């Protein structure tokens, strides 16, 4: 696979302004480049700016300063609606709190981004079923989120992130609300997306196992990149 940058962040800063002179510098000059097919873990203490960074990469938020390129396209100046299109076509997002729509069934939740892309219900549901099968929820398709365990909900969320077949999956502490065993399953699922389907994965995690299996670990502290670690070779590990 040709190595090209799917993400390029240039001098990203993010300030939260609360009132006149209360300013939080959540990110202070971040430069990151992520290549196609990479599996990257972002690690750092609480409040260091990991989620803020993920939201900016996920086009859910825009930086105060700096530029974000996704597959070569500058998204930092895009309008709301253009960002919505980037979100549903180029990116899949997995949240710590799953963030499923409680009134919809598993299948409907998974189908949602495809429905927003203008695909008819029948086609979207068919594809959603396929994906739910892939994440091992064949017999939970019609369940509502509150009828599913945390691990199952997170698998629904992962299936949802895949529905429009994006190249990039962003996951913010996907195992944060899960016990060790279900956490492990999610870790393996994400890893297989990277290894078998070639998805670029960026994951924020405190989960040591998850972090260690990544190709690269980026340590964030106080809104800056503290250091990076690169796995020598993916093949050697096997």
């Amino acid at each position, binding site marked *: 696979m040709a190595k090209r940058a799917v993400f390029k962040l240039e001098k990203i800063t993010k300030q939260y302004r609360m009132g006149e002179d209360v300013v939080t510098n959540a990110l202070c000059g971040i430069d990151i480049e992520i290549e196609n097919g990479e599996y990257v873990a972002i690690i750092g203490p609480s409040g260091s700016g990991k989620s803020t960074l993920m939201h900016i990469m996920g086009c859910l938020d825009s930086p105060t300063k700096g530029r974000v390129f996704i597959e070569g396209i500058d998204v930092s100046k895009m309008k709301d609606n253009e960002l919505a299109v980037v979100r*549903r076509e180029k990116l899949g997002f997995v949240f710590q709190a799953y963030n499923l729509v409680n009134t919809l069934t598993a299948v409907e939740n998974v189908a949602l*981004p495809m*429905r927003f892309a203008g695909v008819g219900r029948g086609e979207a549901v068919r594809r959603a079923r396929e994906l739910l099968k892939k994440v091992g929820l064949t017999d939970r398709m019609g369940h509502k989120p509150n009828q599913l365990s945390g691990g199952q909900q997170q698998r629904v969320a992962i299936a949802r992130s895949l529905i429009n077949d994006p190249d990039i999956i962003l996951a913010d502490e996907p195992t944060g609300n899960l016990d060790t065993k279900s956490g492990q399953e999610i870790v393996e699922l994400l890893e297989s997306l990277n290894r078998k389907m070639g998805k670029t994965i960026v994951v924020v995690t405190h989960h040591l196992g998850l972090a260690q299996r990544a190709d690269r670990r980026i340590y964030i502290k106080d809104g800056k990149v503290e250091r990076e670690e690169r796995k020598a070779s993916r093949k050697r590990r096997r």
Partner: protein
Amino acid sequence: MMYDMLLGELMRHKLRTGLTITGVAIGILLIVSLGSFSEGIKIFVDQQLAYSSGLITVIKQDISFEGIMYSKVDENVIDELADIPGIEDISGFVMGTTPEVGWFGGIDFSKVDMFSGFSVELDEGRTPEEGADEVVLGYKAAERLDAGVGDSLKIGGRSFEVVGIYEEMGTEDDDSVITTLAKAQDVLGMDGEVTMVIIKPEDVSEARSIADFINDEYGDSEEIKAGTDEDVRKFAEQLTDQMSAMTFAMGSIASFIAGIVIMNVMFMAVRERRREIGVMKAVGATNRHILIEIMAESLAITFAGSVAGLVLSVVVVQFINGFLGGSFTAVITPSLALESTAFLMAIGALAGMAPARQASRLNPIEAIRYE
């Protein structure tokens, strides 16, 4: 756009949705039932005018059109007025009700023809003869009283024989029992008096000036008032205008309240679905998707309310018509139903706008954080 989701959302809050629908339904009910009266009056007046058109009517001076039942005019006036130049024909009739048969009237059968547009044909039998205790029935009255030619009816404590049945006329005469002038005067205790005098001018365009002449010359002395069908039409228009104004006022208030109810409910729905809306935006819904979703919900509620309101109106109007007893009927015309529904839908759209905008502008991250 996502009808599947829409229905689910509305069904999730059955009580709330139901109450909102009821609010809208009451709005429609008010507009439609009041409007149906205006429509009914228009139709009623048109019917009346159809067979009094071009005629001059003479009634008691201080009586207005709606109190016509209480009009009493001295019979001798007929002979006096008959001499006025330009009059082709003149006739008086008596109209009243009796407890036994309801509408009961007396006319001069030899002059039936003078009512233009009143080309009355007998379905069966003949007209009553002078001096005989005989009646002829409108077709509705025949059905209502379950009487046919040869049967006898008690009227004013006396026995009358049914000698004929009229064909349908399309006016309230269909529901009347009619006899000769003299007999009706007798039964209704109106000896020497008629309810109304009807004059047919030689030239219809002279009707106004003849009526004015009668009012000037005889008005005060005989305590009578002459009017043309134009006067009746004007009066009716005044009445329907008043009804329309009232319908508009009440309808506006009802719609305004319905609009506020809808807006409130939609704001509530948006507030408690902040997280869901945020999630949808996070996974790729545009502002427009959300806007349309909330607007659609608002319109769906309004539409359901409108349909419920229309059904309710039909029931209520029918009930009221049953009370009125057939002389006058409130009518729900298709245009009334359509216009009031369209009006309420516009209210629903307006009411949904602000909540929909608010929802569409939610910041996905903040909405997701909100727990």
